[in-house]
């Protein structure tokens, strides 16, 4: 890969801020961001009504490596489910419903980024 590690991190941070803005505009409340534990990291934890939403953000500057959607597979989904439970335990929160979402950010060289929100993986 031609891009350097700092460049990748910068792209990731950019994508996460775009995603957060998109979700807040859609009426969701941010509870936590970049939460880490031994098992991994959750990009965004939000609340939509009664539902706790654990959101994975995927950002791509081009689709040479496939779409952002394709980067989330069954293993990743299972880990996000475990992380969601870990987050709830740590914060002593009870949620009637839990959902795993994906926000795909396609960063275009010119113009605004393309954002797609997939509810409930």
């Amino acid at each position, binding site marked *: 890969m031609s891009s350097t590690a700092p460049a990748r991190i910068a792209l990731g941070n950019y994508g996460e801020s775009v995603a957060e803005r998109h979700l807040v505009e859609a009426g969701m409340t941010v509870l936590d961001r970049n939460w880490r534990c031994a098992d991994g990291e959750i990009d965004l934890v939000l609340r939509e009504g009664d539902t706790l939403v654990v959101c994975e953000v995927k950002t791509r500057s081009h689709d040479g490596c496939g*779409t952002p959607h394709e980067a989330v597979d069954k293993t990743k989904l299972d880990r996000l489910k475990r992380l969601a439970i870990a987050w709830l335990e740590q914060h002593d929160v009870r949620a009637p419903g839990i959902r795993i979402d994906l926000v795909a950010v396609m960063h275009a060289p010119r113009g605004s980024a393309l954002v*797609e929100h997939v509810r409930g993986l």
Partner: protein
Amino acid sequence: MGYARAHGVALRGAVGHLVDVQADVSPGLVGLTLVGRADSVLAEGRDRVRMAIINSDLEWPATKRITVLLSPADLPKGGSHYDLSMALAILAAGGELETIGLERTVFIGELALDGGLRPTSGVLPMVLAASHAGIARVVVPEPQVAEARMVPGMEVLGFRSLGQVVAELRGEPVPDAPPVATGTGGSLLGWRGDRRLDDMDMSDLRGRPETRFAVEVAAAGGHHLLLKGPKGCGKTSIAERIPTILPDLSREESLEVMAVQSLAGVLDVDRGLLTRPPFAAPHHDASKPGIVGGGTGRVRPGQVSLSHAGVLFLDEFPLFKSDVIECLREPLESGDITVSRGEESVTLPARALVVLAANPCPCGNFDASITKDGCICRANERQSYERKVSGPITDRIDIIRTLRPMSEQNHDPWGSENSADIRERVTAARRRQRERYADFGWRLNGQASGIALRDNWPLPPSAEALIDSRIFSGALTRRGAVRVHRLAWTVADLAGVDWPGVTETETALALRNGGSLTVSAFEGRSA
């Protein structure tokens, strides 16, 4: 975005089922899930379909969750011919294609990674199944258009690639595509073993009026036949010529035979609609799957099905493995064969005229009537061989003839009659049977139910008395008596007699028990 469906066909043996290929494209965990009891070849279609769509410059729903269901979900499905219907259902569900045009059409074909549409085996039975299900239009790979067109009343469209099919469905001009290889390379040699029988004729044979008559009766009534005799007495020569005196196949029979050939992957569409009955003569080394059908993966028809509506000749049949011989009992009686493996059970047509040939002993030289017969077999070898001949299979044989080596006594000018003349008589006799049994499920005396025969077409009391006397003397079993009844009708049909009497019954008894036929039997048929 949403849901769409296209039709495919599932084959179980020669029985086809219409399959609904349903696709759903919606947001969620990205990937393609295939449900509906697909085998490994079909499941690999996921990757073929995906690459074929992408390489045809069509939109693969890469950011969506795709679910493909092959319905009915509990029917086991296998093979690569679902690729085209899966691809179209996915394209329509993803919004690339209108669903109009997908209804009332069956799509058959395997996809290559470049989007090419490759031929698959079994197209003819699939199109037949589609026709029975009321479908009027099929899309097949271009090389198989001729095969699909054999089904009457079916609109057949042939294409070379997925791109061409999509263009046709969108109503756009169909783009050019490179021709797809058919996969069969044709014969490697100039030798044509399958055409060897084409030049044969009954007039090649000299003498043997009794055997010729027996063969004619067998052909006319669909009676299974056992030829016994020392080696070199002409059993094979006669058996090979039986197809020449059978009438041409009806269109229905022709499609049945070709459907079986298509399943076995041996259908030669260049020869057009089959008209002549098939002939199969498997070697006695043949395995059970080779004879009755089977194999791993998809069930391949065996020789009993490939000779459907024709002649199955088992030379030296006591040398066949006993499990193979046992398996033949079912097709001999019912006219079809059921191959069961695990939970899968497949039925194929197998209504062949079975001709068995047996030597008198393993070395083939034994002759009880001469002292110096040159036989080198031990008495116990001869006995075990004879036991195989007189087993449960011969009990299902209608006609038993023993051939003698050629001598001055049985040399006879009758030998010069040609196949065409005999075929005319056979055809006429078969027509009488078809008309008589029009309300029943059979076409020939050999297939007639014994009970229905006794109730509707009984023999006159004098003939019944003759049969009874043979039963009481132990020369005939009850089962054998039914066979004599059927044979008597065929003898009458050949002779143009309205109802069999004592003469026909006597001839039938002689045919059944291998007794010598009186001259009147031959005079009767030319009347």
